Each structure stands twice: as structure tokens, then as C-alpha cells.
């Protein structure tokens, strides 16, 4: 990802691509759905719509082939809000992940990175927004000066990913297609934030948004317009309209492969191709191949049924593993196939002992590594795997997956066998030897050991796993109760210390590479369920929460700082491995089963969808990194 290419090489590459593309563009056809408009003069011809050096999409996966135009991709979602998933799946980013989880410039033609401190972004010349207006460094300047640093529009300041130790970068426009950001200290989050599924947008369609901005039309006019539209003031209306991720404003220009043409509220979104999309295939044909995407909104419980009835062409969201059998049954009848992709979570269901719990007795216990190890040894992961995942999962602690270069087998097996004898011995060693009449161990202050686990109460998977764990922990003399809660209440209880243990999914990024941030492994935010107050301490710049006391946790904080200042990959890798090793030994979170599978329904005619992929939010953007714009319908092969 550290792209440092010399000026000469860059120029040569650009020239070569330009030649290749212009040659093939001259020979390439218009997408048929646009041909009429081009002939009528409503749209400029292809060569003028593409940037001078479009991005060539050519993937070397077996089974991948350049495709043909045409078709309508049907998908199902459960809420109107989910239309934002199209920005995730479309995955047009300044710089994005490819299938091999490498960062590759996408919207950007190239990017210069000096020590993770100075980033020079080179745009593609001639790149246009979906309404034909030019996409230039002006859009970046507009964002920087008139949005991010404007007190009315952003009263709470710059996004966190742009701040290093609370300091903003220096922004400069070098020329019409080049901008530069300079920090004093390295900002390793910058690129991963730009490549994220819900990315950091550092540009805006300035030409469209200026008409709502008081600086450009005058305060009175902007306010009048806002009030007429039902907002309190111009900043309110502005905030509503300037939402590239939410994807619900059909007038907002975009750089994504498909444009949403349906306003809310609706139960059916129609997205049409973006005539100015910047990617082409190796023959010079402009992507996407598919003309339209239809997103139907229906009740989430009906989605597996409708997918099984053949109403979708591509579906993964809202399909669960236990739907697989049903989906497989109707495969041939309804002309689709079901793939099983690997979910990239560190653990499907993980337990988080709350190291900041209020109750002092439980707090001492939770902070005692022997206790956590005993709890982990008392879980029969094999049974969980058999019962809930049909034996197809992988018993493991909460750590990274084998696909990641940072995986080591000892991380997975550390303290994750089922060994009740050893667990009992550890509990005895802590001193919890007294038991009551029912065989439950007693806490040092005489109360029976009744561990209450809070859940967000929605996933029957979690309930099932907890049911199984309850029985095995009983053998250790610990009574476990699951307390289902509502999500907000659940989080509040954890953050305030009222909850002693909670259950959630494990590491959200189970396939990291050394450049990705290990922020999940150290206290960095209040949202971390195992140490909310320590996380809060760092999130609020040492002004809230509590300072961590456990030596290993302090070490983790130090290591995280080292990662941020690291200058090359091997150093980052070393830091990662150390952090993972500490987690494996200290068992801060207790994982159960990983490598869970996600069913993906793909229509028989849809090509270029990998049969075997990773289903991950970040990195990966679910389908994003597999280039949905290059999926195509093969109607002749039927």
C-alpha cells in the first residue's frame, strides 16, 4: 500500500493507460441503455464521459471474465435506510481494498505517501460527477474550508480520522487535480478511513451543495430556502442534503456506479447506471455492466422466504446460516445457487467480562486472569460448533482468522480447549473453594456465584450459545443467567459498569493486515465492552473514564502508540503479533466459534461473483471489494 512511485514512472503509466484506453474507447461501444441519449445529444459520447485515465478493472480470479451489458439486479432490504448499502456495495472510494485486501487507488489515479504523514492525492483528469460536472480539487477545498471547518455546519469540529493528537492537518490545493494533507505526526488511520465501507468523505459535490450554503448564496436566501423546506435554519437543511452515505437524495451527484433515482419514502428503489463512472474493463468498455439495480424493501423475516422463491439476484444481508437448508432446497427450481462465504469476525459469539464492573468483588475476579482462563476452559466449543453451526465452524479463541497474515495457531488454541478439571483447579487456586448446598461456588463475601450476562436480546444464535455455556459452567460451580435487554439499555449498562459480562460478536476485523489499525486490541473507545471506562479515558483524551491499572493493558496502550508511529510494515507486524499474543494469554475476551458461514444467494445468470469469498464489513464492504460493477448477466448461457 505504500505507493511511492517516482514522477517518471507515474507519467509513463498514465501515458500507457491513456493510449490503451483511448484506443479501446474508440472501438468500445456505448452501453446500450445510454446509446439513445448519446445519439440524441443529451449525453456526451463515451470518450468525453470517462476520465482521461479511467481505472481498468481486470481481476485474475479463476472464473472471472469480462462481461456484457444489460440486466437488472434485484436485491432485498428490510428498511428504507438500507439504501445506503448501495454506497457500500458500489465501493467507489478514493482508495479501496481489492480482493486480496490490498489498498489500491480507485477514484484517485495515484497517491503519494511520505511516512504516513504527508499524503498527496492525484485525481483523474476529466473525472466527472454523475451529473456531468467536473470532479476536481475544488470539491476537496470546498469540503475543507466550507464544511469541515465551518462552525455552523460542523459545530463539533473535524472527524476523528483527520485528527492526530487532536491536531488538524495542513491542507493545500496543489493544482486542479492534486491536493495534499500534511500532519506533524503519522496518521495511519487516514487511508483505512478513506477505504472504509462507510468512508471518510473528504470531498463533496461542491457545485450542487453551494446553492444551500450561506456563504455562497447569502445568509438570508439560504435561511429562507431552509425554512421553506421545513428545516430550522440553513445549517439544518444543509446537513440533511449533504449526506453522501445515506444515498437518499436523488439530486445529489455521486461517483458510485449506480445512482439512486427514488426518493423516500418508498418500498422500491430503482438505481440506474452512472454515465460518468470512472472504471472500465480491459476492453475499454465503461462499467458497470448491469444497467439497473432494484432494491425492494420488505420485512426482514420474509427475506429468506423471498430469496428462496427466486425474487433476488444477489442477496446476503438478512440471510442467516440456518436458512441454508431451506435455500438449498429450492435452488434448481428457482434458478439460483447458494454460496457459503466466510464471515470475517474474530468470533461469532464472544463473551466480554467487564473489567470496569461496579461491584468490587466481581471486579477483582474479572481482573484476575485465572478467572477468565477458567471461564474460557469451561466452554465446550465443540458442542457449540455441532449444535449451532452444524460442525462447520472452527472452535477458537477470539482472535484473527487463518486468512490473515497475522494468524498464529497458538492464538487460536490458547485456553480454548474444553477442560473442566483444569478450570476447576484454577478456580480453586483463586480461593473460591467454598460451595453452597447446590454445589455453587461462593464469592469471597459469601454470595453464591451467579454470573449475569447481558445480551442485546435479538439474536437467537446468542441465546442458543449461552444456553449451552450455562450448562457447562454449572459443572464449574458457576450459575449463569442471561438477561436480554434492548440495545441502548444494554450498552448503557455496560458503559456504566452495572453489567458484569456481556455477549456480542468478536473482533469485527478478523482478517487484518499489518497496515490496518489494531485499535480493537487496545483501550481506544468507550464502545469496547471489556473495558469501557479505560476506552473512554483514551477516547476523551484522558479527560473522562479511568486510567487502566492492569500492567498488560498499559502495555497494549503503549504498543498501539508504537504502531501509530511505526515507519514500516515489519515494525507494524511485530506490534500486532505482540498485541495478539497478549490477548491470547490474558483472555480479555472469550471467543467461541469462528469461521461461521454466510449464505449468499446468486442468480444462475449472474457472473463474476466469487463462489467462496469473505463476508466482512471492514475491510471488504461486504460485496464492495469484489467489484459489483463487474458482475454481469449471462443470458445466453442459459
Amino acid at each position, binding site marked *: 500500500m505504500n505507493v511511492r512511485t517516482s514522477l517518471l514512472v507515474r507519467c509513463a503509466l498514465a501515458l500507457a493507460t491513456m493510449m490503451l484506453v483511448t484506443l479501446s474507447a474508440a472501438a468500445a461501444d456505448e452501453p446500450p441503455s445510454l446509446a439513445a441519449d448519446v445519439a440524441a445529444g443529451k449525453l456526451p459520447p463515451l470518450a468525453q464521459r470517462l476520465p482521461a485515465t479511467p481505472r481498468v478493472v481486470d481481476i485474475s480470479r479463476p472464473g472471472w471474465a469480462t462481461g456484457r451489458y444489460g440486466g437488472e439486479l*434485484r436485491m432485498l432490504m428490510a*428498511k*428504507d*435506510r438500507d439504501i445506503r448499502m448501495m454506497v457500500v456495495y458500489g465501493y467507489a472510494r478514493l482508495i479501496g481494498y481489492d480482493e486480496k485486501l490490498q489498498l489500491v487507488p480507485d477514484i484517485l489515479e495515484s497517491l503519494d505517501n511520505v511516512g504516513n504523514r504527508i499524503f498527496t492525492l492525484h485525481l483523474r483528469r476529466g473525472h466527472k460527477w454523475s451529473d456531468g460536472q467536473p470532479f476536481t480539487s475544488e470539491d476537496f477545498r470546498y469540503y475543507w474550508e466550507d464544511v469541515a471547518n465551518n462552525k455552523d455546519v*460542523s*459545530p*463539533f*469540529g473535524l*472527524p*476523528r480520522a483527520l485528527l492526530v493528537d487532536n491536531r488538524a492537518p495542513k491542507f493545500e490545493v496543489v493544482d486542479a487535480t492534486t491536493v495534499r494533507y500534511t500532519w506533524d505526526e503519522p496518521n495511519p488511520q487516514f487511508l483505512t478511513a478513506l477505504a472504509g*465501507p*462507510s468512508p471518510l468523505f473528504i470531498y463533496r459535490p461542491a457545485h450542487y451543495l453551494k446553492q444551500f450554503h450561506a456563504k455562497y448564496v447569502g445568509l438570508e436566501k439560504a435561511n429562507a430556502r431552509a425554512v421553506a423546506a*421545513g428545516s*430550522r435554519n440553513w445549517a*439544518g437543511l444543509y*446537513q*440533511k442534503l449533504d449526506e453522501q452515505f*445515506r444515498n*437518499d437524495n436523488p439530486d445529489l451527484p455521486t461517483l458510485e456506479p449506480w445512482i439512486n433515482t*427514488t426518493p*423516500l*419514502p*418508498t*418500498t*422500491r428503489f430503482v438505481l440506474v447506471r452512472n454515465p460518468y463512472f470512472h472504471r472500465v474493463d480491459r476492453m475499454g468498455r465503461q462499467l458497470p455492466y448491469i444497467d439497473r439495480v*432494484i432494491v*425492494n424493501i*420488505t*420485512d426482514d*423475516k*420474509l427475506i429468506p*422466504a*423471498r430469496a428462496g*422463491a427466486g*425474487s433476488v439476484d444477489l442477496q446476503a444481508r438478512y440471510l442467516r446460516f440456518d436458512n441454508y437448508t431451506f435455500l438449498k432446497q429450492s435452488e434448481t427450481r428457482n434458478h439460483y445457487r447458494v454460496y457459503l462465504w466466510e464471515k470475517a469476525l474474530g468470533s461469532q459469539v464472544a463473551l466480554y467480562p467487564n473489567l470496569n464492573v461496579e461491584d468490587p468483588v466481581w471486579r477483582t475476579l474479572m481482573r484476575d486472569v485465572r478467572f477468565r482462563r477458567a471461564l474460557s476452559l469451561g466452554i465446550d466449543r465443540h458442542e457449540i460448533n455441532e449444535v449451532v453451526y452444524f460442525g462447520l465452524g472452527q472452535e477458537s479463541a477470539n482472535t484473527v482468522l487463518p486468512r490473515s497474515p497475522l494468524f498464529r495457531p497458538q492464538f487460536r488454541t490458547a485456553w480454548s480447549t474444553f477442560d473442566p478439571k483444569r478450570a476447576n483447579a484454577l478456580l480453586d487456586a483463586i480461593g473460591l473453594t467454598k460451595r453452597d448446598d447446590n454445589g455453587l461456588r461462593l464469592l469471597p463475601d459469601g454470595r453464591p456465584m451467579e454470573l449475569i450476562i447481558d445480551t*442485546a436480546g*435479538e439474536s437467537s444464535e446468542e441465546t442458543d450459545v449461552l444456553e449451552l455455556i450455562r450448562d457447562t459452567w454449572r459443572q464449574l460451580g458457576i450459575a449463569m443467567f442471561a438477561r436480554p435487554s*434492548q*440495545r*441502548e*439499555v*444494554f*450498552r*448503557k449498562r455496560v458503559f456504566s459498569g452495572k453489567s458484569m459480562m456481556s455477549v456480542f*460478536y468478536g473482533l*469485527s476485523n478478523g482478517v487484518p493486515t499489518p497496515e490496518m489499525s489494531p485499535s480493537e486490541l487496545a483501550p481506544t473507545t468507550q*464502545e469496547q465492552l471489556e473495558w469501557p471506562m479505560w476506552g473512554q479515558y483514551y477516547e476523551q483524551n484522558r479527560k473522562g473514564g479511568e486510567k487502566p491499572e492492569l500492567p498488560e493493558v498499559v502495555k497494549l496502550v503503549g504498543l498501539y502508540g508504537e504502531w501509530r508511529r511505526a515507519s514500516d510494515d515489519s515494525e507494524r507486524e511485530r506490534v500486532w503479533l505482540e498485541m495478539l499474543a497478549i490477548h491470547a494469554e490474558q483472555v480479555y475476551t472469550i471467543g467461541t466459534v469462528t469461521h461461521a458461514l454466510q449464505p449468499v444467494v446468486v442468480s444462475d445468470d449472474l457472473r463474476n461473483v466469487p463462489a467462496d469469498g469473505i463476508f466482512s*464489513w*471492514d475491510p471488504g464492504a461486504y460485496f464492495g471489494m469484489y467489484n459489483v460493477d463487474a458482475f454481469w448477466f449471462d443470458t445466453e448461457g442459459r
Partner: protein
Amino acid sequence: MLLYVGKRVLMMIPTLFAISIIVFTIIQLPPGNYLESYIAELQAQGESVDQQKVAFLREYYGLDKPIPEQYVRWVGGMLHGDFGYSFEFNMPVTKVIGDRMLLTIIVSFVTILFTWCVAFPIGIYSATHQYSWGDYGLSLVGFLGIAIPNFMLALVMMYVANVLFGTTIGGLMDPEFIGKPWTLEKVKSVLEHSWIPVIVIGTSGTAGMIRRLRANLLDELQKQYVVTARAKGLPPGKVLRKYPLRMALNFFISDIGSLLPHIISGAEITAVVLSLPTTGPMLLNALKSQDMYLAGTFLMFLALLIVVGVLVSDLALVALDPRIRLTGGVAR
């Protein structure tokens, strides 16, 4: 007559006012508010939230204001036709509700018609052949309608319809027709989809109506004038049709008062299961995510529908039944 109408309409106002207070209190009672639900939901799906955005939104929507002030804003807005703002959809509530209220009314109306058509003959047969096997049998069928939970029936019927008839699962029409103008194809599709909800919702209302109709008709059949008519030699069919049946018709109108709340709430849960574009699923979501203006407005609308429906039925009854007019009030 006009006085009566005026009085009834006037009495509606404090009722609606009381309803609005109750609705608002209930909406506010669950802990947390919309923003917190929203954040929690994003977290649960593994997405991250920009805290600054959240703080901004909280201030903008006035979620940090005291509750009585929020109530006054809401009611004040409603009187202007401004029903508040839906956080979930990021637009005024009226735009969100749009078609849904209309569809709810249509579905309810059609279901009431269905209930009438089914309950009428059964009720009459039951009353005239009391304690016979037919009576028991038909009552059983009617009761089965109440006994089988709506949602279960809806789920099974929907699946069966898909396997047997190829009807697409859920919704009131095939997805291609959504948002398109009304063509014959679209009407056909709607009819294809709507028989399930109508039957499911209708069956639960039918039994109650049968029972009430039967009881009323039995009362009428005991009266003196029926005995007289029979004694005078009128054939039984004619006796039935000319006199008690008229009284029974009366009953249809007046029974809307009991039927309407039942139909509407039955419609809600069935709509959730079948994913109909009516108020049901949206209301459930709004309640779960505490989109309070949306949920509050829905509840108000539903209550208003019932109050107005009852009013209309009372007025219709007054118009139909001279006894009520003359004695100056509805004896219910």
C-alpha cells in the same frame, strides 16, 4: 337531529385530546430516545457512528428538551397540520405516512365487507335453527376463526399460496408494480395478494359478529309482533325477511363500533407478518426504534379512525332508526 350531531362531534374533542396525552406518554416512557436506538442499531451491525454527528442531531431535533415542551410542540404542530418529523426517514411524518393510511383504510373497509358477507347468513341460520347441528357446526367454524392466531394463519397461507399459486411472498402486489400507475395488471396483482390478508383478518372478526347477531336476532324473534305475524299465517320466510331482518340490518351499522377496533388491530399484526404497505409494520418499527413522532402520529390516526368510524356508525344509526331520533339518544 342537528343538535345531536353537533353534540357528538363536540364530545369527540376531549376524547381525542385525552387520547393524544395517553399516546404521547406511552411513546415517551421507554428509556432512551431515537438517537440512542439508532446508534445502538448501527453498533449491532458492526458499523461505526460519528459522535459529533450524533450530538448535532440530538440538539437539532430537540431531544434534549423537557418532555412537556416536546408534547406541546407536537400537539401544536398537529393542529397546524404539521405532524412532526420522522427521525428514521429524515422527513416530515406526513410524507412518510402517505399512502399507508389510505391502504389501511381500504384494507379495513374491504375486511368489514367480507365480515358482513360471511357473518350475515351464518348468524341468521344460527338464530333460526338454534341448537341444531348446523348451529353448532357453523359456530365452530366461526370460533375457529378467532381461535387460530392471525399471524400463524397468515404465515402458513402466505407460504402455501407461494407454493401452490406462485404468488410472490409478502406485500400487496408484485414488486414491479410498486409506484407505477394503476393498470389492469396491477389491479389483478393486488387482488391476488389481498385475499390472504382479508381472510386472515376477517375470520377473527366474524365469530364475534355472528354471536352478537345471533343474540340480537333471537331477542327479536321472541317479540310479540313476530308471534302475531306467524299466528296470522305469514309464511316463515316472509316473517323473517320483513321484520326481524330489518332490525338485524340496524345491528350491522351499530356493530361497527365493536368491529372497527378489532379489525384495525387485527390488520396491524397481519400486516407485520405479510409485510403489507399499511400502517402495521411501520408502526411496529417506529415503536421499536422510538421514532416518537411517527409512532405517536400513527397511534393518533388509528384512534381517530376508530372514533370517526364509531361516530359515523352512530349517525348512520340515527338516520336509519327513528326510535333513536325520537327518544333522543342512542341506547347501546
